[in-house]
């Protein structure tokens, strides 16, 4: 076996989750971590505490999804963290033993042990010094696992609480390593603006294509907007100008920005496919409701272009989370305002088309699917001050079966009724990941 064969085998094994015996998780995780390609056993939901509801604290809720379990579809554990932090996103460490979850308002980072007892995570460590460590970054958002380290995107800064922000790297022990500020028009850090792009310095998501040494970041908005009442913000012309319009291509190894692409309207989630020859990624824009392709062209240069509308952009459906299938053929796209999920055929990434849609509820945000694509989970909350009010403020986890032509509801957990709070990001767990 030569190095090439070694590499090909390694890539295949990596996708299969070897050498760990456990297999897969949803399809949007860091490629560095073991995956659950079988049946997930637990869904962890990072949940925002609500004043006057239950213990009012943010919490990690564990829902049993084991086939045949007496408690399947029920909350079996919940661990509260002692306050409200604007709980938002989280991600596993590369060894998948710990789940890091952030608070966008307090900047606390909670590290949960999910391997000692995957059915009952415990709080292992809390990082209280994110802003100070990082030199002023605010709003820890995406947690993207690297070997032995965690790359965290910020959303804001403690100077003007606007959108200028950075990537922040910690080691797996929870100790600070480095800060990498996003390029701006005034400080491009060696990056090149493509076309009419203006580097805004904003941040949101981060993903990487290892074999190409490419890392991409997207751009949302700062603390002053994401903590503002949604209706008030929509009426504030100046606030509405403070959204990101860029995706940045980085050198993954050196952490240096290379290109700034013009992607207007707040590009949010970024997903690379899994195929060995798939040199592209998808993103969606929240305000302009478009599906974007960031891709390597025939000359080996990375480019960005809009490839489809999501619903009617004039209605501002507000696309939020997306989930790519393990076979790279389809992409779920949720839109918050109309509560819909849409399935796009992305077999031709340059010409995607919608093939299915369904209203999940009055509002919907996150979507996660099993490795085989047969189970799809949805949660409801966007941000505490952006969620809908009154009867429209549905808070839930809903589990569906995808039979190839439609979503069939399996079970639902009502987070309001259970006095848990606002359900945000989901991640899967399984005892089979650990010996």
């Amino acid at each position, binding site marked *: 076996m030569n190095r090439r064969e070694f590499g090909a085998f390694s890539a295949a094994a990596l996708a299969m989750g070897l050498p760990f015996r456990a297999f897969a998780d949803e399809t949007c995780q860091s490629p560095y971590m073991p995956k659950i390609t079988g049946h997930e056993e637990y869904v962890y939901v990072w949940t925002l505490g609500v004043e006057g509801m239950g213990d009012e604290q943010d919490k990690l809720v564990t829902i049993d999804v084991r086939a045949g379990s007496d408690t399947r579809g029920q909350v079996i554990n919940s661990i509260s963290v002692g306050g409200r932090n604007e709980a938002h996103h989280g991600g596993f460490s590369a060894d998948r033993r710990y789940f890091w979850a952030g608070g966008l308002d307090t900047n606390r980072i909670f590290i949960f042990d999910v391997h000692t007892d995957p059915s009952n995570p415990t709080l292992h460590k809390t990082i209280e010094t994110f802003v100070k460590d990082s030199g002023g970054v605010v709003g820890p958002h995406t947690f993207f696992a690297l070997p*032995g380290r965690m790359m965290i995107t910020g959303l804001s800064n403690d100077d003007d609480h606007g959108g200028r922000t950075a990537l922040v790297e910690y080691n797996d022990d929870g100790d600070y390593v480095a800060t990498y500020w996003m390029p701006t028009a005034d400080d491009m850090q060696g990056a090149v603006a493509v076309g009419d792009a203006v580097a805004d310095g904003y941040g949101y998501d981060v993903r990487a294509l290892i074999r190409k040494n490419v890392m991409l970041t997207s751009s949302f908005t700062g603390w002053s907007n994401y903590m503002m009442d949604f209706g008030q913000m929509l009426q504030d012309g100046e606030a509405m100008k403070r959204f990101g319009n860029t995706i940045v291509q980085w050198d993954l190894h050196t952490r240096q920005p290379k290109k700034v692409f013009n992607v207007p309207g707040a590009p949010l989630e970024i997903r690379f496919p899994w195929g060995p020859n798939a040199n592209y990624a998808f993103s969606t824009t929240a305000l302009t409701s478009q599906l974007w392709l960031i891709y390597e062209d025939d000359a080996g240069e990375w480019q960005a272009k809009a490839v489809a509308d999501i619903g009617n952009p004039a209605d501002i459906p507000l696309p939020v989370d997306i989930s790519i299938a393990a076979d790279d053929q389809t992409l779920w796209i949720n839109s918050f305002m109309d509560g819909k999920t849409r399935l796009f055929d992305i077999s031709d990434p340059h010409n995607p088309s919608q093939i299915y849609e369904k209203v999940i509820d009055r509002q919907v945000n996150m979507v996660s699917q099993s490795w085989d694509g047969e189970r799809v989970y949805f949660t409801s909350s966007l941000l505490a001050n952006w969620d809908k009010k009154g009867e429209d403020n549905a808070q839930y986890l809903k589990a569906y079966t995808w039979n190839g032509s439609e979503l069939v509801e399996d079970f639902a957990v009502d987070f309001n009724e259970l006095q848990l709070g606002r359900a945000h990001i989901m991640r899967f767990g399984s005892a089979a990941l650990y010996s």
Partner: protein
Amino acid sequence: MLSKRTMLAVCLLLVVAGATWLAMRPQPVTDPAPWSAIFPASPDFQFDPPAPGSYALHRIKPAPDGRVLDINGEARTLSDLTRDRISLVSFVYLNCSDVNGCPLAMSTLFDIHDASLQVPGLRDKVQLITLSFDPERDTVEAIRSFAYPVIKDPSAEKKLEWHVLTTANQAALQPILDGYGQVVDRSDDQEKISHLLRMYLVDQNGQIRNIYGLGLIDPRLLMTDVETLLMEGGQS
């Protein structure tokens, strides 16, 4: 004496790693190009390594100390071994049958070991350290057999020093694994030890400066990082 099982495992690992090394052994270069140019580009790593010294390798955390045994059975400490040299540290077990695990790491290290012949003086600054995480089976005798081709290499004195190590027992091993963050899961199947493939770049002061997993174990990238650390210290 080695058990039949250990002998078989050692032979298997050596055959796989050796065959890979022979197939992909580095080609000589004559110009003062970056050391990464010694190695052929692989389709698995579809990018050119950055220029050495053009980026920073941040201090990730201190490498842990611990007591280990060398191929002569002598007790050593990791801190003594790594002092004043850049070390590429890897963890393997000789019975490893995951070709994307230990053999992959070993073939890359064989590449680097062989290529070091082309960089005069590199031996004084850089070394390889391979530590077993299976001390019960990877005894001193077993690792000595494993290291035989390195020891008996006619050019060994001109290539990087390669420390092949084991530990007296799990109690001595575990703090080292924990300190590095090398995850090892032992199942009921004693023939298999599940682990995440990792390699660590440790600088002259005992700081971990990079951690490599699958998809990153490219000899060009490793040597670029080594060269970057040496430039940082003004030694390249």
